[in-house]
């Protein structure tokens, strides 16, 4: 999976032509569980069942719940990836500078690094 598709899946999945209806409803499941869980109702589970078995829905829901819980906790600890986007082992201070305060994809981090190099 490319970084461009990953970005599209986060920011633009509903309108993107790169995702199947099954992928779109799974991405919506993740987004709504984090932002508007009241919208993940019986009708929404009905939409999920059009594409996924109950086993797969439980797998997705557990995975999403786990990630909602842990990423907020991890965000408060302020730790950053061990490696830079170009594969160098970097200190936490350098990694914080590279990846910043906001989550970003490796693709956008590489673009920013490239822009810094030419400026």
């Amino acid at each position: 999976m490319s970084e461009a598709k990953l970005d599209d899946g986060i920011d633009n999945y509903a309108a993107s032509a790169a995702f199947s209806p099954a992928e779109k409803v799974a991405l919506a499941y993740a987004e709504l569980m984090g932002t508007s869980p009241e919208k993940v109702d019986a009708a929404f589970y009905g939409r999920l069942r059009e594409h996924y078995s109950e086993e797969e829905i439980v797998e997705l829901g557990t995975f999403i719940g786990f990630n909602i819980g842990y990423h907020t906790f991890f965000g408060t600890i302020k730790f950053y990836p061990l490696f830079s986007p170009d594969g160098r082992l970097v200190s936490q201070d350098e990694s914080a500078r590279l990846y910043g305060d906001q989550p970003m994809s490796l693709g956008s981090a590489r673009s920013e690094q490239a822009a810094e190099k030419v400026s």
Partner: protein
Amino acid sequence: MPNIEPLPLEAIEDAELRALIARCEALGVPDAVFGRILARVPAYAKVTLEAMLHSHTEGSVDHRLKEMIRVSLARFARDQYFSALRSRRAQQAGLDEATIEAACSRYETDPRFTEAQRVALRYADMMYLDPNQVDAAMYGELKRHYTEAQIMELGAFIAFHYGMQVFMRTLGATPTLPT
């Protein structure tokens, strides 16, 4: 009926999973409903229930404090299922409903709580209400009362249980028995 129907216990063939569900039921958190829903994916069910039990009952942070935090988070997540469940171990250790209610609503001013309990309850409160407030200053405050190992224990407990509560809220499940 929950949005994913729990499997009948007799349909769960994995003996290890059935034993884990029984251990959870003995504690009271979660009761069999959660395990029977997760049992549709037995490998997920086993690691999830094991982590849930371990994070709630092992370690060196007072189990009663974790139980207060857990109920408070479940209410914040508006999860009727986990809000209604109670740890029998915490109850046997003296945690009553009045204290749980105070922990959920007025821990900052209620005289029954120590400063250490207050900062832990605030940590849980802020984690999902306003994580920007869980900053270096708050970790500094936590370190005045807890070891780094205990802070990791608390943080991991909060993250794991809150995540499962959000999932369970969307399923619309309720406990097997009134508590």
